[in-house]
């Protein structure tokens, strides 16, 4: 059993090593490249993308849906698992919230990047129509962002206090930790407020999380288009979100375990549990996919049939089957074996699941648009296909880099695993406070 001091040393945020610095530099370079590309877009217009009147939503929108999906992991791990009394997930709560906050911030930015006139964004507030699913989406995303930040912050308060005391020799650092810890000292009143707040947030975040991804799904499901006109879309998207989120947490927890030497805290047991959870979530998602694709395929309704033919056998077939089989089926099968739920294989599988999730959203967004009700006529041949341009990819990579940069920066300054909760659960008691602590 570790002592409190050992615990804090293990879990305190570490400075960037060489690899850390290279990583940050790489992300910054990508982001700068994306900013240049966005400058081109802001001055020349969306013509710099591969989108045209038929493929009118492309990778910006599928990227946006991906970010919203990943952000749901915050509610899954932090709230749902916590509310159901699952203790083993405690080390993973902070990672999940960090992913959630980073994803939802970049999701909001991505949707602004897709706008033709971002300079008129205030119109959403001055002339917003409550009848529009986009307005609902703006409302839920904002709400979810605030909840996620609060759910990241509240459990952080005791940890910030611990870090303030740990770094009492580094005046400036200690002062900042102190400021953000809001004078936390674990007294009865504070604990009461804290407990009520976290409980409330955990309960609140679940319907809002369901809301955020259901409303995003409704951006598609409220239209008539075959491939989107489905009453299945809300639950289908949410199930997919949990899969993507779980894959994301697995990937990040493996990386952070290595870089921060957290083998004692994020153990093989955690990987095993997450692996089992991922299998379950994938199976649920596959169930929704079967409903989504097999049912219309049975009916051969004209427009649906043409769209499905493209997905199953046509231009999109390679991508579609890769995403389903390599991105979902094979991982689910592999993870049934305990050997595959060991850290390294699980990490690889998790990464594949996340990448598959990104492309799955692309499959949902653009192919439907290339099968409108009326035939595509009277436009250049290139408009019959969608090929994102280099600038468009650069901007998209920029948003992904942005999300990873937010995660990296948060991990640099706050403990990845909640120190005080880990201490409590393992009955590691904090040593008595000394007189010098009181003064600072």
């Amino acid at each position, binding site marked *: 059993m570790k002592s409190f001091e050992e615990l804090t040393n293990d879990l305190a945020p570490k400075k960037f090593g060489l690899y850390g610095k290279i990583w940050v530099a790489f992300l910054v370079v990508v982001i700068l490249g994306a900013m240049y590309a966005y400058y081109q877009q802001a001055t020349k217009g969306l013509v710099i993308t591969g989108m045209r009147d038929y493929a009118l939503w492309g990778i910006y929108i599928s990227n946006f849906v991906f970010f919203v999906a990943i952000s749901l992991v915050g509610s899954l791990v932090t709230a749902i698992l916590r509310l159901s009394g699952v203790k083993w997930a405690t080390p993973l709560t902070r990672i999940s919230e960090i992913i959630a906050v980073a994803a939802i911030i970049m999701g909001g930015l991505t949707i602004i990047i897709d706008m033709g006139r971002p300079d008129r964004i205030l119109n959403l507030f001055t*002339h*917003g*129509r*409550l*009848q529009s699913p986009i307005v*609902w989406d703006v*409302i839920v995303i904002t*709400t979810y962002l*605030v*909840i996620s930040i*609060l759910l990241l*912050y*509240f459990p952080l*308060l005791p940890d910030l206090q611990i870090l303030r005391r740990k770094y009492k020799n580094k005046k400036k650092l200690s002062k900042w930790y102190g400021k953000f810890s*809001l*004078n*936390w*000292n674990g*007294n*009865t*009143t*504070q604990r009461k*407020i*804290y407990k*009520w*707040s976290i409980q*409330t*947030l955990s309960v*609140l975040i679940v319907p*809002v999380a369901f809301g955020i991804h259901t409303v995003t799904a409704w951006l598609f499901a409220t239209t008539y288009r075959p491939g989107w006109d489905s009453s299945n879309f809300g639950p289908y998207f949410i199930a997919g979100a949990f899969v993507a989120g779980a894959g994301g947490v697995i990937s990040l927890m493996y990386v952070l375990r290595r870089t921060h030497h957290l083998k004692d805290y994020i153990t093989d047991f955690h990987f095993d549990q997450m692996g089992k959870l991922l299998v379950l979530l994938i199976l649920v998602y596959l169930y929704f996919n079967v409903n989504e694709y097999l049912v219309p395929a049975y009916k051969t309704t004209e427009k649906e049939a043409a769209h499905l033919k493209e997905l199953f056998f046509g231009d999109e077939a390679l991508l579609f089957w890769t995403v389903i089989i390599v991105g979902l089926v094979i991982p689910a099968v592999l993870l049934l074996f305990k050997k595959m739920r060991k850290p390294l294989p699980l990490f690889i599988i998790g990464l594949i699941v996340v990448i598959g999730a990104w492309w799955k959203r692309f499959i949902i967004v653009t192919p439907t648009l290339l099968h409108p009700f009326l035939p595509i006529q009277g436009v250049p041949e290139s408009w019959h296909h969608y090929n994102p341009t280099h600038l468009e990819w650069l901007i998209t990579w920029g948003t992904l880099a942005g999300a990873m940069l937010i995660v990296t920066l948060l991990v640099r300054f706050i403990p990845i695993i909640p120190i005080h909760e880990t201490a409590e659960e393992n009955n590691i008691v904090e040593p008595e406070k000394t007189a010098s602590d009181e003064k600072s």
Partner: protein
Amino acid sequence: MKNLNIKNHIVLFICLSFIAFSSTFIYAQEKKKKVRVSLHFNKVENISYLKIFGKYKDKKKYKPANGLALDVFQVFENDSLVSLGTINLDKKGAATIDISKVFQQNLPQYDFKVFHKATDKFKKVSKTLTIQMANLAAKLITKKDTYFIEATLTNAQNEPVKDAELKVQLQRLFAPLAVGKGIYFTDENGMIHVPITEKMPGVNGKLNYEVVLDDSDDFGTIKSIIATNIGEPIKDLSTFDQRTMWSPPSKAPWFDIIIPNLLILGIWGYLVILVINLYRISKHKNS
């Protein structure tokens, strides 16, 4: 002898110059365009006017004679002209001149002339039109619960005009709609008797029917308008005033305003409390 030769040369030179100049003059004149002018007489109720159109051929296409000025005269028996005014053709090559006052003279026949001398661009323009007076009286009558449009065409001597082609139509926004067969011929009494079989819609039930003698050689165009109230009053079927999902934000359906706002207030109420809790934690450092 020599003097005579020089004189002959000078005369020859002068003659040749004259021919050269006059040929350029003639050539320049050939460049002037010939304008085709058409004159139409129109009478609508008590207002009579002349409609004048002018066009010319430019590279195998007809173009309106924009800007061309024309003098309008009434011609009397002794070929004397009385000026009625001067008009300018607009960019569509058309112009209108009111000649209602002329008809107070109560002549059986009226002769009009438009004329303009040659300009740089156009040749001399001259066109005449002879119109005889006619009167088209139209009214709405009811017989056995059916409405009829009755119109009588009489000439200046109050004699009926037989076999005249009259159009009977209903005024509509873009183009009039034919009533019945649309075209009816006057009988020996110069009358037509047209049943209105269809109850047409109109703003507040108002319907304006027209009886038109269209571009007759003798009488020009005469139109008589019958303003009636016999139409079906139109109903505004639009959803503009209703609360619908496609209305502006101020007219959103009630459920769409109430439920989202309740949800937002409910959740954000909690969020405000939670933020206040952060503040409270900060304040309660000594408990």
